[in-house]
């Protein structure tokens, strides 16, 4: 039995309606409890801001393309090196840090759970290997289904149950967490160097549309009763005028789940562009935000872009190639047989660029114009919009209109007529920030009732204590203090153990990988389906028996078993 008592914590926990109350938190064996014995270890939180551990519901930190981002970028690696120190390993990398780098930096920012946004099933073993090398956060992986041949064939046959059965087999086989669709249909078209423009274009050969793929997978997702909803990266990312495609994609989503959203739309900043070309690009964040406000069954994340150097990486192969033709720097692409694609290029987002300035404003506009912060989560699509180490700055921007205005003043003057940010004076409060960074993320991932994203009794004791007395400062004016405080926790606590203190990592292993195993009727399982097996053996280049990720890759794991409604 291990016990911990955190005294004088200034708790912000919107799920339990606690808003800046100074209180004690008791922890036993990794969970929040009513009280502990006097043998408990005591931490004095000194009245500092205390929240549940941060959750990142969309980030790229582990797996084939992330690692390729490192592999191809020694210049990024040397930009962020730290020395081996005590039990901390050395780290490298700025925008795509090494596994230890990611884990340490997230930990010192108070983050205790992260979801890898895109895992190709065929290469899942790689993601799990890196999860094992990510010592301090609970990890989950979205599994890519955007170009999955058996799924598209079943969608074409309007057989939603077969879609569900395929998804169940794949998720179980690769120990994934949720359904991800990246540029649905577009990644398959990219197998021929082509793309789809929006949700009504048929996918070459398969003759299904992105809209059909999205809708069928949403229905399959609910048949399987998965904790998270379908996680969608819309078609047409990063293209002027794409906002209508984004709204069209949201319109496809039926409202099927009472406890959480039915569709999670990711990095919406990249999908809220007006205009017809890079010359007249403008923000349509208000239109997208209106749509989200009218659709409580949709949750988005910001995909905030911040100025500076970073690396873009996505399963959206064709988009990356287009970006390469603009930048002509370096380009990697990796298409995955029968499943999906991916691309990587380094970018520099410049304050001098009108396009980049509009992008920067759009993310913030989305967060400020969407009324319910649980519907707009904080993420940068790390590292696409920017490395996650910029979250404190984003939070400060959301809490401070003066900070935003000061930043706007540094942008090209032509930007202002293309955005609505200058006229928005909403300033988020700590409850709303907690919603966007932990409570809402926990709900969106379906993990709230499993004790994540809040500090109620029975919750998992993942706790972040930031050196900031929130009663004593005005975030609107003292935004630099907000940034400083959120960069480094005084304490980050994972499963009731202190893992980081003032930037120093104290523990080296305290995590689990969360994955799902949907149970469907035996006779519908794909491992008994002759067609599925025959096509698998014929078209994949690995044997079906060698495809599933073995238990050896999830030595510390939490399996969520769901019972499908067949």
């Amino acid at each position, binding site marked *: 039995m291990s016990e911990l008592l955190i005294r004088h914590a200034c708790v912000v926990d919107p799920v339990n309606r606690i808003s800046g109350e100074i209180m004690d938190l008791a922890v036993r064996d990794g969970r929040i409890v009513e009280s502990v014995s006097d043998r408990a270890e005591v931490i004095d939180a000194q009245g500092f801001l205390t929240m549940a551990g941060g959750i990142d519901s969309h980030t790229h930190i582990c797996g084939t393309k992330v690692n390729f981002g*490192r592999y191809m970028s020694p210049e990024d*690696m040397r930009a962020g090196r730290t020395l081996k120190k005590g039990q901390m390993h050395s780290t490298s990398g700025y925008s795509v840090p090494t596994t230890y780098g990611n884990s340490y930096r997230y930990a010192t920012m108070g983050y205790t759970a992260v979801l890898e946004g895109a895992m190709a099933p065929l290469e899942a073993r790689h993601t799990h290997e890196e999860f094992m090398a990510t010592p301090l956060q609970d990890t989950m992986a979205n599994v890519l289904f955007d170009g999955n041949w058996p799924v598209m064939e079943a969608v074409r046959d309007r057989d939603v149950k077969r879609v569900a059965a395929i998804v169940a087999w794949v998720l179980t086989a690769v120990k994934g967490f949720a359904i991800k669709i990246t540029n649905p249909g577009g990644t398959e078209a990219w197998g*021929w160097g082509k793309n789809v423009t929006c949700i009504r274009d048929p996918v070459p050969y398969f003759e299904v549309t992105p809209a059909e793929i999205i809708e069928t997978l949403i229905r399959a997702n609910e048949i399987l009763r998965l904790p998270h909803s379908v996680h969608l990266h819309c078609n047409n990312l990063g293209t002027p005028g794409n906002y209508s495609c984004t709204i069209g994609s949201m319109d496809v989503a039926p409202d099927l789940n009472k406890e959480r959203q039915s569709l999670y739309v990711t990095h919406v900043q990249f999908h809220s562009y007006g205009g017809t070309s890079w010359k007249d690009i403008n923000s349509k964040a208000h239109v997208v935000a209106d749509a989200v406000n009218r659709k409580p069954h949709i949750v988005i994340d910001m995909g905030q872009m911040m100025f500076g150097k970073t690396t873009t990486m996505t399963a959206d192969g064709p988009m990356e190639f287009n970006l390469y033709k603009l930048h002509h720097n*370096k380009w990697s692409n990796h298409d995955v047989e029968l499943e999906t694609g991916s691309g990587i290029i380094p970018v520099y987002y410049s304050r001098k660029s009108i396009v980049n300035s509009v992008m920067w404003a759009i993310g913030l506009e989305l967060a400020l114009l969407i009324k319910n912060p649980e519907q707009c989560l904080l993420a940068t699509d790390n590292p696409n919009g920017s490395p996650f180490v910029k979250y404190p700055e984003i939070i400060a921007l959301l809490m401070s209109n003066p900070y935003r205005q000061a930043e706007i003043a540094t942008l090209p003057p032509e930007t202002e007529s293309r955005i609505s940010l200058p006229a928005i004076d909403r300033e988020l409060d700590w409850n709303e920030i907690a919603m966007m960074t932990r409570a809402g993320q926990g709900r969106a991932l379906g993990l709230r009732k499993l004790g994540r994203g809040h500090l109620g009794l029975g919750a998992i004791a993942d706790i972040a204590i930031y050196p900031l007395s929130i009663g004593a400062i005005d975030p609107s004016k003292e935004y630099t203090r907000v940034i400083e405080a959120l960069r480094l926790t005084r304490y980050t606590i994972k499963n009731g153990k202190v893992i980081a203190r003032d930037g120093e990592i104290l523990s080296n292993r305290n995590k689990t990988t969360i994955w799902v195993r949907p149970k469907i009727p035996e006779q519908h399982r794909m491992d008994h389906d002759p067609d599925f097996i025959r096509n698998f053996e014929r078209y994949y280049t690995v044997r079906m*028996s060698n495809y599933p990720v073995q238990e050896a890759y999830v030595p510390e794991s939490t399996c969520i078993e769901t019972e499908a409604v067949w």
Partner: protein
Amino acid sequence: MLHEDVVCPFCACLCDDLKVETDNGTIVKVDNACDLGNHKFLTDDDHRLKEPIRRTPSGWTSATLQHAIDRTVEILLGADRPLLYGWSGTHGEAQSIGVHMAEVLGGVIDSTTSVCHGPSILAIQEVGHPGCTLGQVKNRADLVVYWGANPIEAHPRHMSRYTTYTDGFFLDRAFKERKVIVVDIRRTQTAEVADEFILIKKGGDYAVLSALRAIVRGKSDMIPATVAGVTKEQLLRIAEMCKKAKFGAFFFGMGITQTQGKYKNIRNAIELVDELNRHTKFTLTPMRGHYNVYGFNEVCTWMTGYPYAVDFCRGMAFYNPGETSAVDILARKECDACLVVASDPAAHFPKDAVRHLGEIPTVQIDPYPNTTTAFCELQIPVAVTGIDAQGTSYRMDGVPIRVKSILNRGYPTDTDILGEIYRRIKEAKRV
């Protein structure tokens, strides 16, 4: 006992459809493997080193495992610049311990990559890598290019599993529908099956690639009548074949990583493929050699940020092949101890690099006595990954596959031995 879907631990094709029959602790039959794979499975037991050995002035003598580990730890801890080399013939879990060891020791870690596709990595670091998994090629490619690669000798099942001879989803009669271009400085066996063979004069790859890029860009007017022995007519024809293909797959080997300019050749090839992607779909894949050489690059990258040739002397990763790569360090006598794992540098390095191995304390962890043994103070035999040890391996296209253990010959694994050495080093360093 019949083992199905066994993974072949020879080359980076990592074929996973072998059938291996074992009887009473020996392998009696192998189906589906190529000559190389067959040989590895069937003759394995004949050549194993049976116990740790120690070199004495009068010859080799057996040593206890305890002694071997004690002495290895002592050598590594006593060194000012130990080199940990090899790694491509073992599983990822062992490689990962190796990287951790290099970090805590303040040593240099390099793999066989540096004398194989290291130049490909240097090129990728300049311009990226438009690639794909091998199934994309199998199911879609109507044009396959082998440049400076000889799969018939080095990757014998590559053409039948992934390219020329295998039917795919979009190609029912692949052998008829797919075109094959082979480029080399000699007429290899692979060249015999090509629809188009380009015989380049030695050292001419770079110029030919530049010429093709210009032609694909529509600048053929400036190309001279021949480039490095290749006629302009043939260059134009090749460029047209590439542009007309629906899906082209470019594979390249040592023929361009090891010739003049090294990685700049690969860079030129990659930029040709980039250019072709403006016209059609084209991908490129290095023909990686050892079954898990790519695995080392993956492991080393997520742990250190760099794929190979990483110097931890100052407690953080520094990377500069040409300086921190094994041949250079040995040739310049910059290391003062060496641990060789799962490779045989004495057979594959120029002799003056090999000589230094014998001048410093060198320990080898390898199942077989090999030429490097001759320069070692100690060798510790271990299980062979894929035969009596299991673990992760990465195919040449980055697909990770778990290599199996199909019998038990009673040897410790690389992970066991390295794990113990690492534990002892950490203990001594109080980490």
